């Protein structure tokens, strides 16, 4: 028995997957969801073996939804955009179905999953937190308590390393995201965000003052009143971006 959840914002697209699955008696559809939030809830509730996931959906994309899962099920993407294919591949998706897809193509994807499921050595539950989806847009999607927060990059004041996580400071407070500093350093706009310290990335628009601090270091005073240390290697980077 294979427990399945279908997540697609177009009902007809979801019902097509449902119809195609009728050929596989071992497949049991646990839920059909029309956005990422419903999807998250259903995944938590049913703990499916496989999900069929659309990318472009209301509020959060399929990729962003996956990022919010601690342990993701196997995924077969279904989307009309082939631009996402590479990303899906990076996400260790079982397969990637380009809409519209044929029954035969669908069967190939499904059988691929069945085969992978039998292969114990290579678990298909991918550790999604280690993968950089980025998402198609300039924002961070994260889970805060039981709420899903969408934070545009422009609202980020600074980032602070915190073991396997990163603390994201905004006007609304501190949020936790399971990503690396390196990830943010490479995705954030380098003209707006500078990694001034091994543990800090700061939004340049937030800086009000740069003060000498201890021997070789400096301290940034932020508009919000916060203080961020600058390391020996961080200072030249900061100087360069600020044109000092």
């Amino acid at each position, binding site marked *: 028995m294979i427990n399945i959840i279908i997540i697609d914002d177009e009902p007809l697209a979801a019902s097509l997957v449902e119809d195609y699955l009728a050929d596989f008696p071992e497949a049991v559809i646990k839920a059909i969801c029309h956005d990422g939030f419903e999807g998250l809830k259903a995944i938590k509730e049913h703990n499916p073996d496989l999900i069929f996931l659309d990318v472009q959906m209301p*509020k959060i994309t399929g990729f962003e939804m996956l990022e919010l899962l601690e342990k993701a099920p196997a995924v077969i993407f279904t989307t*009309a955009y082939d631009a996402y294919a590479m990303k899906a591949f990076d996400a260790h998706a079982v397969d990637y179905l*380009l809409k519209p897809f044929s029954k035969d193509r669908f069967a190939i994807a499904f059988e691929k999953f069945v085969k992978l499921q039998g292969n114990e050595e290579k678990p298909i539950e991918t550790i999604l937190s280690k993968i950089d989806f980025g998402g198609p*847009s*300039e*924002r961070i999607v994260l889970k805060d308590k039981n709420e899903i927060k969408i934070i545009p990059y*422009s609202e980020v004041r600074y980032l602070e390393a915190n073991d396997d996580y990163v603390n994201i400071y905004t006007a609304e407070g501190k949020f936790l995201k399971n990503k690396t500093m390196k990830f943010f350093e490479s995705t954030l706009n380098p003209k707006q965000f500078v990694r001034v310290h091994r543990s800090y990335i700061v939004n340049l628009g937030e800086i009000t003052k740069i003060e000498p601090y201890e021997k070789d270091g400096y301290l940034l005073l932020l508009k919000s009143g916060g203080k961020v240390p600058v390391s020996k290697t961080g200072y030249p980077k900061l100087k360069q971006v600020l044109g000092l």
Partner: protein
Amino acid sequence: MISQVFKFSSSLWYKAIPIILLWIIGVAYLIQSYGASLIAAFVDVGICTFYLVLGFFLLENIFKFYTPQGRRLYIFIAFPFLISLIVFYSGMFTVEFFLRNEEAYLGFMADSFIVKLFITFLLCLGYALVLLLQTKLESQLQHKEREEQIQKLAKEAELYQLRQQLQPHFLFNSLNSISSLLHRNPERAQEMVIQLSEFLRRTIRKDDQKWISVEEELAFLHLFVGIEKVRFGHRLCIDFDQKGEVAVCKLPPLLVQPLLENAIKHGLYGLLGEVNISVSFSLEEAYLVVRIINPYDPQAGQATGEGFGLEVIKRRLFLLFGRHDLLATQADSMLFKVQIKIPQNYDQYHHH
């Protein structure tokens, strides 16, 4: 013109020299018929023609750097006048030097002083006129070229925009819907194939330069919305409104539909649940005003391709009317409003 003739590579030499020779012979015989010696007349005309050609050359170079415009008639006359004076006096002194023994001829020359000066002036003025016409013609040609360029750009933009429209999500997702309907409701599937075909046919129609009436545009928009409703029917609610006598107003095709598509996209992807979009047409002074209002999520950050659709429309409006102020947007915390104005007293057929 003269300067072109004097380029060595120019084959115009062969045409210019016989004309100059013919001129010299003709004028020399004319002078001779008034009783002057033929040889003296030839020398006189030859020398004067030489100076005249030089004068033309000078005039042309002056006009190359400064073309008198519009009302500055006195400047336009002053240049040929000055040059004719120079040509005339240099010619006269040179002729007097060469023909210093031909008393009779010099006497004849002194008598015809005014006539000769006047003719030289007329020739210079005529040449200046030709030059002026030539520059006018050239600038007109340039203008035409520029207009053609603009038209080409507009076409490219349109084609680009068409590609954007037909590319990924709309077409493929619609086809996917048809694929799905074939299982459950073949009749509805067939209906949608027809709708989609009709939509595509209208989108790629060849006579897209002709403006269409609001009535036609509305029919097209209903077709488009019909397809989108098959995909999102449970969430999408679109309200069309016409204020006043707008049905006969005209607008360029494929201007409103991309905006509506944009509005639908941002509504559907920015919100959960039902999405209400309103489209209204109204006539305000000499403008047909189209307003589209959709709910959106300002917190969503940059959604994919946001603003791109608007840029294309802005560009097309500029290419059509040469104005940047015809598209306006307004965003508050809940609603995104876009408005385009189409001038109704615009010459629709000549400019595009």
